[in-house]
C-alpha cells in the first residue's frame, strides 16, 4: 500500500484486519491495535480465534468458521475480544473472503466495530422483555383465578336466590295485602334481574375459562322463538314499534334459548339506544340450513371508539341511570354467534345501526 493508503487504513473508525490464506493475521490497523492494547507486530501471525475470549472462541469455531467456509463471509456476528489488560471488549464483526481467479482464498478481510453500547442496550431490552413476559404470566394466572372465583361465586349465589324465590312464592300463598303483593312483585323482579346478572356472569366465566357457551341445537323453525322475544319486549315497551320482516319457512339448526337470548339483547339495546320515535326492525332469513337475523334501529351512530370495543366484556359505552347491567350482553351475544359457528357484526352510521347475526348451515360449521 502507498503511504496514503496506509494512513487511510490505519485511521479507519473501525478495526480492520487482513488474514492470510491460512487464517493467520497479516495486517491489522492502528485502530484495532489500540482497542485491544496489543501492537500490530504482536498480533501478526495469530489466528482470529486467538483474539477472542475462550467462550466466544467456542462460538466462533462451531458456528462462525463453518459459515465463513461455506459462504465466503459473515456479517453482524457478536464476539468478545480479549484485551491486553485481561478484560473483554464486545464487538460486532463482518468478514469477506477474497479469492483469486483459481478460486483459492487470497486473503480474508475482517471489519469490527466496538459494541459496548449496543450490547448494553440489547441486554437491557432482553431484561425488559423477560420482565414483561414474567408480569404477563403472573397477570394471566391471576386472571384465571379471578374467573374461577367468579364462576364459583355465581354458582353459589343461585341457591340463596332460589330460596328467596321460594319464600316469595310461599308468602303469596299466605294471602297478602295489596301493598304486600306489590312489594312481593318488586322483590321477584329484583330476583329476576339478579338471576339474569348471575347467568351473564356464569356465561362469561365459562367462556373465558375455555369451556365456551354450551349449545343444545335442535332443527326447528326460527319464527316462534323470534315472535316470543318480540312479544316480551313489546310488553315492556308498549309505546315502541318493532317491525318484523321474516323469511324463515325453512328449518335450521340452532339453540332456541341462546338465539332468543341474543335477539332479546340486540332488540333491547336497539330500543334503549335508538331513536325513540322510530321503529326497530327485526329481520330474519333462513335458507339451505343457514340463517341470518338482523336488528336495525335509527338514531345517532355508535361512536368510533365504542365500535372497536363493542363486543368486549364489561364494555358499557355511555351508561344511563336506567340501565343496570354488567356490560356483558353483547359479548355473550358474540360468543353465542361464535358457538354456532357464525358471526355477529355491526354497521353504524347516521342513517341506521344494524346488527347482523350470520350462522352458516350446521354441516359447514
Amino acid at each position, binding site marked *: 500500500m502507498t503511504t496514503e493508503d496506509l494512513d487511510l487504513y490505519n485511521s479507519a473508525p473501525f478495526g480492520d484486519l487482513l488474514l492470510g490464506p491460512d487464517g493467520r493475521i497479516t495486517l491489522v490497523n492502528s485502530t484495532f491495535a489500540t482497542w485491544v492494547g496489543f501492537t500490530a507486530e504482536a498480533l501478526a501471525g495469530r489466528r482470529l480465534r486467538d483474539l477472542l475470549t475462550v467462550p466466544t472462541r467456542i*462460538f466462533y469455531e462451531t458456528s462462525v468458521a463453518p459459515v465463513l467456509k461455506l459462504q465466503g*463471509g459473515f456479517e453482524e456476528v*457478536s464476539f468478545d475480544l480479549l484485551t491486553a489488560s485481561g478484560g473483554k471488549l464486545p464487538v460486532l464483526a463482518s468478514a469477506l473472503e477474497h479469492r483469486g481467479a483459481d478460486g483459492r482464498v487470497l486473503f480474508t478481510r475482517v471489519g469490527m466495530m466496538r459494541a459496548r453500547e449496543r450490547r448494553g442496550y440489547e441486554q437491557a431490552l432482553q431484561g425488559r422483555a423477560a420482565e414483561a413476559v414474567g408480569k404477563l404470566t403472573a397477570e394471566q394466572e391471576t386472571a384465571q383465578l379471578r374467573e374461577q372465583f367468579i364462576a364459583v361465586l355465581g354458582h353459589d349465589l343461585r341457591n340463596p336466590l332460589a330460596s328467596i324465590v321460594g319464600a316469595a312464592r310461599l308468602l303469596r300463598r299466605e294471602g297478602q295485602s295489596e301493598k304486600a303483593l306489590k312489594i312481593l312483585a318488586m322483590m321477584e323482579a329484583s330476583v329476576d334481574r339478579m338471576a339474569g346478572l348471575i347467568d351473564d356472569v356464569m356465561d362469561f366465566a365459562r367462556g373465558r375459562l375455555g369451556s365456551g357457551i354450551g349449545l343444545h341445537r335442535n332443527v326447528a323453525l326460527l319464527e316462534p322463538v323470534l315472535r316470543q322475544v318480540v312479544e316480551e319486549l313489546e310488553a315492556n315497551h308498549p309505546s315502541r314499534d318493532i317491525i318484523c320482516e321474516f323469511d324463515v319457512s325453512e328449518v335450521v339448526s340452532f339453540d332456541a334459548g341462546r338465539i332468543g337470548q341474543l335477539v332479546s339483547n340486540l332488540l333491547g339495546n336497539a330500543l334503549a339506544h335508538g331513536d325513540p320515535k322510530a321503529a326497530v326492525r327485526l329481520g330474519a332469513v333462513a335458507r339451505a340450513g343457514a340463517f341470518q337475523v338482523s336488528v336495525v334501529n335509527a338514531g345517532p351512530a355508535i361512536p368510533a371508539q365504542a365500535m372497536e370495543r363493542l363486543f368486549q366484556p364489561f364494555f358499557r359505552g355511555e351508561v344511563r341511570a336506567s340501565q343496570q347491567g354488567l356490560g356483558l350482553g353483547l359479548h355473550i351475544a358474540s360468543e353465542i354467534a361464535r358457538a354456532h359457528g357464525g358471526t355477529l357484526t355491526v354497521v353504524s352510521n347516521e342513517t341506521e345501526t344494524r346488527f347482523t347475526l350470520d350462522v352458516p348451515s350446521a354441516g359447514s360449521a
Partner: protein
Amino acid sequence: MSAVQRNNVHVQGAGTQAMVFAHGFGCDQAMWRHVAPAFESDFQTVLFDAVGAGRSDLSAYDAVKYADLAGYADDLVEIVQELGLTQIVFVGHSVSAMVGVLASLKAPELFSKLILVGPSPRYIDDGDYVGGFGAAQIEELLEFLADNPMGWSQAMAPAIMGNPDRPELGEELTDSFCRTDPVIAEDFARATFTSDNRADLDRVTIPTLILQCSDDIIAPLEVGQYVHAHIAGSQLVVLEATGHCPNLSAPAEVTAAIRAYV
C-alpha cells in the same frame, strides 16, 4: 410428521450400503457438502438436520426431550429405521459423533461402522480428565449465547462471493447455510457442552474410526486419544487439518480418511 420430514432428510447416491452424515453443533447438513458427494457413487448417502438446525421442523422441538443428547440419538435411530436402513456407516461431526455412539448403543444392529470426526465425550475438565474447558468458561459461553440470540443474524449473503452485482442481499435467502434457531441453539449448546458420555465409550461394540484435527480447541488431541483408548478396537487418525471443521477446511483429507476405512 415423519422423521424424514422433521429432520429434512436428503438421500442421494446409489449403493447397497448407506452412509449417514450427522452435523455438529452450530451448523446444519450443509457442512457435508464437500465430503458427502464424493461417496454418492458407492453409497446411498443420507444427510439430515438436527431439530433446531437448517430446515428441520422447529415445531417438533421439545425442550425436555432434547435437554439430553439421548433425544438426538433417538431421532437418529428413528431416521435410520424409517428409511429401512441397516448396517449403516455413520459419519458424525463434533457432538453428533457422540450422538452416533449413543444411537449405536441403543440399536447396534443398525450400525456397521462409526466414523467420529472431532468427537468429545465431555468438554469440561474433570480431575485428571482434560476436556478442554473450565466449568466457568462453559457457563460464560451459555450466557453469551443467551445474551446474543441474534449474535448470528440472518443477514447472510452468499452473493458476497466476489460478485457484487447480485441483488439477493437483504432478501430471504433460501440458500443460506448453517441456519440454527437461536433459542434452540442455546439449549443444544447446554446439552452439548455440559454432557458427560465418557462411560458410554467403553460399551461401544461397533468398529470405530476417530478423525482428530490438529490444533482443535473444541476437541483437543488429548480428548481424541481418550476416545481412542476407551473404544476397544478403534482407530485414530490425526489429520493435518486444523480447527474444528475439517469437513469444510480440508474436505479432501477427510474424504480420503473415510474412504480408507470403509
